[in-house]
C-alpha cells in the first residue's frame, strides 16, 4: 500500500481536485482521477524532501474555523484602518519566535499570518526559529506576538506534533 501510494494525503487531495475541476462525479472521472491520484505522487516522489505523516483532524477543523472567522472580522477592522487617517496607523515589524519544527507547519503559519488582515509575514530566519512579520497597526508588540502564537501556532502544534 505504502509503495503504491507513498503520499496518501496528496493522492486524496489530487482526486478531490480532479473531481472539482470537472465539476461532477462519474465512473469515467473516478477512474481517471484514481489513475492521476496514484500516478502523480509516484512520479514526483523524489521531489518531496520530507512528509508530514500524522495530522489530527479535530484541531485542524477548529483552526480553519478560527482563520475564516479572523479573516472576516479583521477585514472589517482593516476597512476602518485603511479609510481612516493614515497618521493614526502604527505600522511596525514584529519578530515572532517560532516553536514549530515541521517545515510544512511553519509554511502554514506564515501563510495564515499573511492571509489574516493587518499582518504580512516578511521573512523567516535561516535557522527557522523566528518569523519577521509586518503589522499594520501595533499597539503593543508583545501582545501582538502573543496573540499570533496563541491563536495560530498552538493549534498548528496540536495538528502536527
Amino acid at each position: 500500500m505504502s509503495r503504491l501510494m507513498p503520499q496518501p494525503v496528496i493522492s486524496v487531495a489530487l482526486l478531490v481536485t480532479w473531481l472539482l475541476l470537472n465539476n461532477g462525479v462519474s465512473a469515467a472521472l473516478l477512474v481517471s482521477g484514481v489513475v492521476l491520484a496514484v500516478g502523480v505522487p509516484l512520479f514526483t516522489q523524489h521531489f518531496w524532501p520530507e512528509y508530514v505523516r500524522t495530522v489530527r483532524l479535530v484541531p485542524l477543523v477548529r483552526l480553519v474555523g478560527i482563520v475564516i472567522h479572523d479573516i472576516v472580522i479583521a477585514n472589517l477592522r482593516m476597512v476602518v484602518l485603511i479609510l481612516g487617517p493614515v497618521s493614526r496607523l502604527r505600522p511596525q515589524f514584529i519578530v515572532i519566535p517560532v516553536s514549530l519544527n515541521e517545515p510544512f507547519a511553519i509554511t502554514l503559519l506564515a501563510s495564515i499570518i499573511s492571509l489574516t488582515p493587518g499582518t504580512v509575514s516578511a521573512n523567516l530566519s535561516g535557522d527557522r526559529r523566528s518569523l519577521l512579520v509586518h503589522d499594520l497597526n501595533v499597539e503593543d508588540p508583545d501582545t501582538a506576538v502573543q496573540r499570533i502564537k496563541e491563536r495560530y501556532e498552538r493549534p498548528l502544534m496540536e495538528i502536527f506534533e
Partner: protein
Amino acid sequence: MVEIIVSFFLLAGAGFALIGSIGLARMPDFFTRLHGPTKATTLGVGGMLIASATHFSTGPGTSLHEVLVTMFLFMTAPVSAHLVSKAAMHLDGSFTEERRGGGDSTREDAD
C-alpha cells in the same frame, strides 16, 4: 431571493476589493502597501466566489469550481506577498540580518 443573495455577495466582494485598492494607493510606504492586495484577495474575491457559486448552483446542476479558485488563491497569495517583501528587503540596504528577525529588534516603519 437568489438574486438578492448573489448581489449582496457581489457588492460586498467588490467593496472589499475596492477598499484594498484604495489602501494600496493611500498607504505611505512599501510594507504598508503590501497589506492591501493580500487582503483584497481573501475577502474581496471570497465574496465574489460565494456569489458565483450561489448563482450557478441554483439553476440546473451545481458549480464547485469556486472551491478550487479559493484554495489556489489561499495557497498562492501569501507566497507571492512573502516573495515581494523579501525582494524589498534585499533591495533596501538598511535591512541587516538582525533586522530581518535574527535579533530581537523591531522598528517603526520601512521607507
